[in-house]
């Protein structure tokens, strides 16, 4: 459930965070996406100026602005009005249907996750594939999407000892969230597979990140051979993305 009145939180003199609810909630998150879109519209129409970044997250939207801009003092009242009126978008901006490989070479934690719930790895994969996920927020590193909610029947804690190096493209779950690592990095999530399409690619200049908050994501299973084919460099990155985009507003 969200707050009855949006909370406007000062983050210094160059950002405001508009908080719509206390924790992770699909309706609150959807309203955050609606709010981020209406802020972007207000910026595009010139009604709101001085804004440099709009960052929707799980239950709030952070707006970064130029504190030297003459309209900086009026930004909070604008945001408050937009937040009160915020409604969820009528449809997801984009829906992805992405390939995922669960071959054991990419899935060192799949057996343990399955064991925890008395499932075979195949049954765990079937559960994972059965549920569309939603990108609740972007962050932690460029292109990293926090996706939820994975089925209750796969819920698992983070690793007690995080890995110092998680391979890029790893598909990982923790709690009831899923993510794909865009880069080699440390990480404590359970690795259950891999997704071959780069989730951050500077060649796609307008949008290096594959995902944006509010996207809907489903996965289908591929074998290791298909994974390696899709992973091969040299393919046009925009065409590659388009291949797996089901729906776009």
């Amino acid at each position, binding site marked *: 459930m969200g707050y009855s009145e949006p909370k406007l939180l000062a983050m210094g003199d160059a950002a405001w965070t508009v908080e719509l609810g206390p924790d992770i909630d699909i309706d609150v998150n959807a309203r955050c996406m609606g709010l981020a879109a209406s802020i972007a519209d207000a910026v595009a129409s010139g009604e709101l100026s001085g804004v440099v970044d709009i960052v929707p997250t799980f239950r709030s939207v952070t707006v*970064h602005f130029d*504190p030297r801009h003459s309209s900086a003092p009026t930004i909070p009242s604008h945001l408050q009005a937009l937040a009160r009126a915020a409604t969820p978008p009528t449809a997801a901006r984009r829906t992805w249907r992405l390939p995922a490989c669960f071959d054991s070479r990419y899935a060192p934690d799949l057996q343990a996750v399955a064991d925890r719930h008395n499932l075979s790895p195949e049954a765990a994969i079937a559960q994972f594939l059965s549920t569309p996920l939603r990108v609740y927020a972007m962050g*932690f590193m460029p292109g990293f999407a926090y996706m939820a909610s994975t089925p209750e029947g796969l819920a698992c804690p983070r690793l007690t000892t995080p890995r110092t190096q998680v391979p890029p493209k790893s598909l990982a779950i923790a709690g009831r969230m899923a993510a794909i690592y865009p880069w080699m990095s440390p990480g404590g999530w359970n690795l259950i597979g891999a997704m071959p399409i780069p989730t951050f690619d500077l060649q796609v200049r307008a949008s290096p990140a594959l995902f944006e908050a509010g996207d809907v994501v489903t996965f289908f299973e591929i074998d290791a051979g298909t994974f390696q084919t899709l992973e091969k460099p040299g393919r046009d990155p925009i065409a590659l993305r388009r291949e797996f985009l089901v729906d776009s507003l």
Partner: protein
Amino acid sequence: MGFCVNIRDGGMGNTFQDAGRLGFRHQGMPASGFLDAPLAHCANALVGNPANATCVEMRVLGPTLFVTSGALRVAIAGQAQPVITRANSLQQPLLPWHSATLFEGDALRVGAIQNGCAYLSIAGGALLPEAMGSQSTYVRVAVGGLNGRALTTGDSFDGPANPVDVSTRELQSTQPFEWPAGPVRVIAGPQSDHFTADALDALVGTMWTTTAEQDRMGVRLSGQRLTHLTAAHADITSDGIAPGTIQVPGNGLPIVLLADCHTVGGYPKIATVITADLPRMAHMPPGTSFQFQLVDHAQAARALQATDALLTTWVGQLKTYSPPGFLDEKALYGQNLVSGFLRADPLG
């Protein structure tokens, strides 16, 4: 191209930065950019660049640059003792707050950076690719700057075809640009309500010391541990963060976030350093003690105006000067002398 520079010694902690990579934080991309934008503005003013032109930000040990071809004008804003070794082996200091022109065969050794952050500007800039609208280096994912990394021994960069006319006189300042002392001012929040009243008192009422755990992402402080209301208040649902926010993890010790900070974070943020004072956090080598002071938005706006006025005044007092060996044709012809000659007065 105008010049080619080989990095003879990458030094330590040196990266190309500009005003930052804005407009991509919703994709998880940090803003990056100058830690001390006004100081970079000073360096740029000394070589006639626009205020936000890309500079080399130097934090620990500056680089040694060798001019393999062409000529370039440079200046350093900050505390360092750089030395130019001319092609004929003559050594000259490059005084901070003075521009100087380097020619083919010259080397510039910047040496140690004395108070945490200094800028090397290059007239006309360097030819670097733009990534997501910025030349700022974000080392963590190898984006921007020179090959996506800190200045590295053996790397080279070129200058634009039409750099600034190096036959014009050099610029100097008679005084350094210095930040005023005094407490670092903060605005409470966004999660000040996750802390006890004692913690808020301690934030502004006790001394803080910077630790060696600092980089372009943030600075860890040591001091009195700040207590969250309950253990559960030490974690929040991850939300937006910004350079200047003061995160307090479960151990109670604050981290002041800087330009390369992530875009979201899961620790509560007790307060946020105001824009006017954030550059000062780049000048706090390990062991620097300071205090925080609570202000409101109106005070923050006045502080920013004061900072901008300080910078405008500083840029306004820059004067031209002629270094030794400089052929001042304009002055010579102005004085109706028959032919040019070399000035030989000592530098500075």
